[in-house]
């Protein structure tokens, strides 16, 4: 049973974002993903404001699992955040 909601902010062309998606899939974690590069400019600005609040570095991937935020493809941190460590 997954312990929290997982939200991923990613870029569709980014290798680190792909690694993160692959890891979540391998671990059987359900998650919502926004590929920010695919949004129209208005929606993109709105989402970027949110990403900046979560991750002041505003880089991708930014993963939110419950109250935890992991920036970048950091396997151990991601596993811990989503509860599969």
């Amino acid at each position, binding site marked *: 049973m997954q312990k929290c909601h997982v939200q991923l902010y990613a*870029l*569709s*062309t*980014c*290798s*680190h*974002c*792909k690694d993160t998606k692959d890891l979540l899939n391998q671990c059987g974690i359900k998650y919502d993903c926004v590929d*920010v*590069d695919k949004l129209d*400019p208005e929606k*993109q*600005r709105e989402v*970027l404001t949110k990403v*900046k609040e979560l991750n*002041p*570095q*505003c*880089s*991708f991937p930014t993963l939110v699992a419950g109250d935890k935020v992991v920036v*970048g*493809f*950091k396997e151990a941190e991601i596993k811990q955040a989503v509860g599969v460590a």
Partner: protein
Amino acid sequence: MKVKELYDFLKKAQEAKGFYFNKDRKRVFELLEGLLTNKERYGYMCCPCRLAAHDREFDQDIICPCAYRDPDVAEYGSCYCNLYVSPEWNAGTIPNAYVPERRPLEKRFPP
């Protein structure tokens, strides 16, 4: 341009300058696909791991190879995307560690 053509072209041009593709060929081809996607989207080969502003002048520093590649390869053995790496990175004699974003914060928000 097809991804294999881009691979062959960049490999030759960049190796002559002392920059090498990651030995992980699958990753390299995915990143090159991303560059071709961005070329089609924006008209220039913007870094696939960064959000483009769709403004060539604003994004000048992240047109691949980006302005941060040389210092990142020198300091970490790899560029931000892990596309270009040092021989030591490929040989595994240095840790293949996370490369932090070097682009200035104010450049990460499209104008």
